[in-house]
């Protein structure tokens, strides 16, 4: 994998802000990475807002859900 494709893969989760439906396929380790990166990039609140607006909050595992709610 090239550096560019590696970075693109690592940031693929940002697409969930446009299409929150993808969060349903995320595993707990995926969520852990998203919560950490999202907070660091100041995007977690935006993601939380989009997931909640799409009615998907209850599909999020409880461990990351509390961090989305807390945003």
């Amino acid at each position, binding site marked *: 994998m090239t550096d560019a494709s590696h970075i693109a893969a690592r940031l693929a989760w940002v697409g969930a802000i446009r299409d929150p439906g993808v969060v349903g396929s995320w595993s707990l380790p995926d969520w852990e990475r998203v919560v950490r990166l999202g907070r660091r990039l100041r995007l977690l609140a935006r993601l939380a807002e989009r997931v909640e607006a799409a009615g998907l909050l209850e599909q999020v595992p409880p461990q*990351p859900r509390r*961090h989305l709610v807390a945003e």
Partner: protein
Amino acid sequence: MAGSCASGDDSEPRAVIAGTDGRVPTFVEVSTEAVRAALAGDGLWLDLGAAVVRVRSDAPALPPQLQVAYGCHPFVGAGAWADLHIHLARPSGARRWLRPQVIFRCDGAQPFEPFPADTALPLLEWGGNWLIGQRLNDLLLLHAGAVERDGRVLLLPATPGSGKSTLTAALSLSGWRLLSDEFGAFDPAAQVFRAVLKPVALKNASIAVIREFSPAAALGPEFPKTRKGTVAHLAAGPDSVLRRHEPAVPGAIVLPQWRAGSPTRLEPLEPETAFSALAFNAFNYKLLGAVGFDAAVHLAQHCPAFRLTYSDIHEAIGTLAALWDDTALSPAT
């Protein structure tokens, strides 16, 4: 205390490092070398009850300090989830060797100045408290000691220097279950308190008070000349650790105030006074907005509140035990 932590934790779901009987060992049951190796590898998952903290470190001083301060906590070397990620690292360059230091990092940020390398545990504790106060905003985080007996929480909100941690430590050594000496973590959705079970940080004269109160108490090393003076950490007892996931309903609010030479006095307070004590002693009251307000109102309305002025810790403990046994103190609803 640390020496009596061999009961382990059969309910621990995250362990990959288990004893020969399949039970997860506690920190006092493993070697310092095992702690050092785990910290230097993937890290250790400290389950505090309301949150899981993953700690990684190459700081040489930390493993034995952690073993005392978290003696009864399960030693977990792999986990599926952590709420907080902390990395205590030795700096590169001269500070690695010359008056060595240790750096606190979380998610790529370094929010504090480095500490002297031999004070890794105080840095972990203060930094960890700061992170909890910043991140766990699904809970109303009151700056308060919290202990439980008979399923009800005694909340001790107070400003620094009021004797909150000393009283919380003494209560935890007198049959009360420790939830936290720093966070009254109230879950507004379930209307219960949750444990944020870390060691009790004792400062200056409080250390000798607790040593005298309970000579067998599992107190860690003393760290002199920190920015808060001399600090030592009291490990949570085995019962508190085993029950750290068990919530408890609000019971009473007591505002402690240690005053030299004072007789022990317990005075009832109006709910309005209790409300302002809660709101002014919360880490995230303003941030939570209406949720924080409603939670503080709920606690003020449902918990009898008192001010406790004392100078003798034994008398203070006796007074609170009598208060708890008072039939007028029924569980909050």
